[in-house]
């Protein structure tokens, strides 16, 4: 865990910093390979910026709408810099809507754009795991394995490291696929990435110590990942049939 990096008088919030670097490197990588999916690199950076900004505003807006009375009592809180006044689902929804609007206005092809963004998503996934390691989020279940790490009062699975390694492996597969696959069928890079990520989540969630559980003990994230995996396998099949 390294939540704060102290450089002289500067106290840097490591987890956020790692995420920012991840987005930056991911975007750079995605732009470099964008021509393979016949997407203009500038569209990727514009779309990312618009999505992030809309998500930021939307997250706060949804939060204000969820708790109107608190903000009526203190209107200045609407502009508070506190990241705690934030609704993540509202942010995701607003960000997605903004990305879709941008895509349809610029007449981008859905599958090609997703393919072009995929290396970026793969990098961001690694950054998210590294960021979680720095903050102690997404921690593992208690265990006695020799490679356990001391975190939150006990020895735990280094779940963040498992997830970072899986994300790294997936990045390599995505890059190889994007570069060497003779099959230019659009959407395939993204679908393979999503299927692999869902499989990794399905497998690795078992070692997490913070899973959201159903009353019978099933882990919600695993069920969600299973459904996404099933959808990906079906879509891959359909996309393949489409060219034959």
């Amino acid at each position, binding site marked *: 865990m390294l*939540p*704060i990096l102290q450089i002289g008088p500067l*106290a840097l919030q490591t987890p956020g910093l790692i995420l920012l670097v991840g987005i930056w490197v991911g975007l750079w990588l995605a732009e470099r390979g964008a021509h393979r999916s016949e997407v203009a690199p500038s569209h990727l950076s514009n779309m990312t910026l618009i999505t992030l900004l809309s998500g930021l505003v939307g997250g706060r807006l949804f939060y204000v709408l969820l*708790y109107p*009375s*608190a*903000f009526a*009592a*203190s209107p*200045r*809180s*609407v502009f*508070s810099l*506190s990241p*705690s*006044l934030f609704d993540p689902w509202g942010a995701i929804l607003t960000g997605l809507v903004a990305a879709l609007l941008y895509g349809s206005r610029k007449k981008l092809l859905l599958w090609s754009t997703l393919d072009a963004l995929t290396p970026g998503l793969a990098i961001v996934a690694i950054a998210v795991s590294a960021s979680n390691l720095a903050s*102690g989020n997404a921690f593992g*279940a*208690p265990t006695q394995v020799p490679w356990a790490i001391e975190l*939150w*009062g*006990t020895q735990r699975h280094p779940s963040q490291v498992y997830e970072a390694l899986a994300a790294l492996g997936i990045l390599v597969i995505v890059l190889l696929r994007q570069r060497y696959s003779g099959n230019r069928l659009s959407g395939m890079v993204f679908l393979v990435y999503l299927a692999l990520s869902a*499989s990794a989540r*399905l*497998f690795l*969630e*078992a070692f*997490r*110590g*913070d*899973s959201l*559980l159903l009353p*019978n*003990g*099933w*882990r919600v994230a*695993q*069920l969600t*990942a*299973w459904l996404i*995996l*099933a959808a990906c*396998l*079906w879509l*891959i*099949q359909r996309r*393949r*049939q489409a060219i*034959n």
Partner: protein
Amino acid sequence: MSSSSLRWSLFSLLILLIGAGWIWVSAAPNGDATSGRIPAPRQGFQAPDFSLPTLSGETVTLSDLRGQPVLINLWATWCPPCRSEMPDLQATYEAYQDLGFVILAINATYQDSPASLETFVDEYGLTFPILMDKSGDTARLYQMRALPTSFFIDREGIIQEVVVGGPMSPALLQVRVENLLQEAP
């Protein structure tokens, strides 16, 4: 159906069956709250227990306050965001103390001047207990890395949220405290 698409269907089916089997095998034991009841200064965990002297000489023990929502605020007089959130903390305390809400303002006395404390409390008109962490043990227990840091603790003694840095906005205080109070005693 061509032979390659048949192969793909069989492959998909196999993968999904293995996935379903893994979900079954790796389900958490019945009734297990996965984050557990281990004391740790983190959301979802039991708030680590402490006993500290107040400015007026009594001793406050966190576990004695089980059944009441508690806001722990780690602060120091020399820290500007700590100072600027004090009036909002006081207002929140006044609004909700009758409903059982408690604020424990733990002063990082080991890096503050004890002499300035009383003047500070008078100046800001603070009526909630001011606890003195003279050794820094409680700051270590709560892995304090920045001032102020606040912990919102529910009636069961479980940390519901950690807010690092400040000042906290009045809306944040109101929403969090009302959520804590909504849980049945």
